[in-house]
């Protein structure tokens, strides 16, 4: 018997996705589904941000270097005491800026309306406040953003700088290097040992990282001629009886919806397979060449039937469901 050909691939992917699905309850009493960001996209976002910060620091250094040292590059001997003081002050401000800038970068962007640094924006993720124990949605606060980024210093910057300096100095490399590596490893692996993929900073701040939905409103399905049951190719009029429609439930309806919407995937072959499967199930003799009109008509009438049932409080989850 011909069956739904793509189910084998669709189900496991959904379950991996379902493991990251969470629900929060807003003040209006609305249950909002969220999807936690994957760990991979968070790492990628972090790398993009770090690259940008390094670029920003490097760019500023070049600019300041040009302004103070002239275009020659090498630092000229400064004899004027006033000029020397000025240079020293610049050096001091520079060291402070080196500390402040990476921290400020993350705090500044995450406090914006998007709740995301440029790296996170590229990956389509953002930070949000973790809901309370009862699932009630909480508001992101400035304090939370600061707290989660303060932790970044000990999670990332300190061990990395430490490993770097241990490698460059050379002496006593092994012990210090290993210590820093273990330190770094504890924090880097932290997200793998809790359900919500929280890193240390998220724990302290009460935040988590979620995906930002970017869905366009798709077209309504029941507008075309096909939805009326009339084929534009053959002019045939498809009408299904109550018994024809009773065999499938909501799951099959949604698979059919995906197939019809996803025009790139809806190869004639896939449409044919599904049309044949349906015909076999309801005992129609399947023709060829008019699958789309047939499926659109079946989809619309099946949905009308299931939605009517919904309004009356009857739901049918899938074809195995008796309701």
């Amino acid at each position, binding site marked *: 018997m011909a069956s739904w050909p793509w189910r084998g691939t669709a189900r496991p992917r959904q379950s991996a996705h379902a493991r990251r699905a969470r629900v929060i309850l807003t003040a209006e009493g609305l249950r909002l589904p969220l999807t936690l960001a994957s760990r991979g996209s968070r790492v990628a976002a972090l790398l993009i941000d770090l690259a940008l910060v390094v670029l920003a620091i490097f760019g500023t250094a070049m600019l300041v270097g040009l302004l103070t040292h002239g275009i020659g590059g090498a630092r000229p001997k400064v004899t004027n005491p006033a000029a020397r003081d000025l240079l020293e002050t610049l050096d*001091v401000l520079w060291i402070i800026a080196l500390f402040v800038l990476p921290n400020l970068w993350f705090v500044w962007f995450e406090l914006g309306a998007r709740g995301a640094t440029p790296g996170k924006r590229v990956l389509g993720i953002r930070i949000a406040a973790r809901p309370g124990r009862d699932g009630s949605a909480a508001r992101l606060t400035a304090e939370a953003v600061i707290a989660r980024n303060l932790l970044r210093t*000990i999670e990332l910057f300190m061990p990395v700088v430490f490993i770097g300096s241990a490698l460059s100095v050379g002496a006593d490399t092994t012990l210090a290097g290993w210590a820093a590596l273990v330190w770094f490893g504890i924090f880097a692996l932290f997200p793998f040992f809790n359900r919500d993929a929280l890193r240390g900073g998220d724990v302290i*701040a009460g935040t988590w990282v979620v995906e930002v939905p970017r869905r366009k409103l798709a077209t309504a399905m029941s507008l075309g001629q096909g939805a009326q049951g009339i084929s534009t190719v053959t002019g045939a009029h498809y009408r299904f009886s109550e018994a024809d429609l009773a065999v499938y439930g909501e799951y099959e309806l949604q698979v059919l919806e995906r197939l019809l919407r996803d025009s790139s995937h809806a190869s004639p072959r896939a449409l044919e397979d599904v049309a044949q499967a349906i015909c076999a199930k309801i005992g129609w003799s399947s023709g060829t060449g008019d699958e789309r009109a047939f499926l659109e008509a079946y989809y619309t009438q099946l949905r009308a039937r299931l939605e009517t049932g919904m309004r009356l409080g009857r739901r049918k989850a899938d074809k195995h469901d008796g309701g």
Partner: protein
Amino acid sequence: MMAITGWFSKRQESAIADAERAALRSDRFRLEREGDWRRLEAIVTRLEAGRIGAIGDDDLVALPALYRTLVSSLQVARETTLDAATLAYLEGLAQRAWFVVYGPEVGFRGWLRRFFGGGWSAGVRAIGPDILIALAVMVAGTVIGWLLVANNPDWYYALMPAEPGDVRVPGASRAALYGSLFGKSGRNGMAVFAAYLFSNNAQVSILCFALGFAFGLPSILLLVHNTALLGALLWLYHGQGLTLELVGWLSVHGTTELFAILLAGASGIHIGRAMAFPGQRTILDAAAEAGRRTATVMTGVVLMLIVAGLLEGFARQLIDSTALRLALGGFMLLWWLTYFFAFRRTGVRR
């Protein structure tokens, strides 16, 4: 402004015309409301981009109503439609709109204003008991450092990282020690060294705060270690009768710096205490609550360390007399105490 309104109403007209053609009741429901959804989406997109100026007044006024309309649309749709794509769109839009409507209450600038206008000092007062604990630990650390070195001067080298050319070692002459405190006005590079110390201190403070995570014990150890060093230094200069001079030398930046380290340690202890004794809350909730409360304090700590670094790098070189140094250090201490404990505005937005 007019253009946007016109665009929407045209769209809405066509949507209503479509609605009459749609075969399904749930699609008609959707087509009748689609205009409002798209308008909300356009507003949310512009708010996310931070372009508040690009949004008309009537759109801003309409935002809460549009959001509520969307919420009720979604709730109705969940009960009446099986159109998965439309449901997913509504859920996504509701989520984005929720983040905009209930986003961070203040932007960076608003937060800064609140921070200096009382939020910082309120944060410090909120962890009062922990400050007392941290203070006791720091005093104990100083005493331990003194006693250790007094019993066996070899401890000095263990506490103080040896630097070549440093005259501050046990057995140094009075003149050498005196020279290390005064008369370096002309020396070059001190300011840079001070700035380096700042970033070092800032990292130690953040470590103190962050290790509160491990029930506060590492924070306490860090405090003890850092103040033991102070005790050793005090012992060294006391031996040559230079205690007051050393205190003066340290106080210029030390009152600010030690205060900052005190607050950082107190923050760590606060988190540790909250996690060890969460009460009715889960450990995660307790940690998050304590972390958010102390984040404000920690921002202040970093600022204080910047001030301390500037004092150390510039002011100390300019003032070469113990009395003036003590006066400046005392003034700074008084200033912080006044700001934190006498300045009683909560800093919460009215």
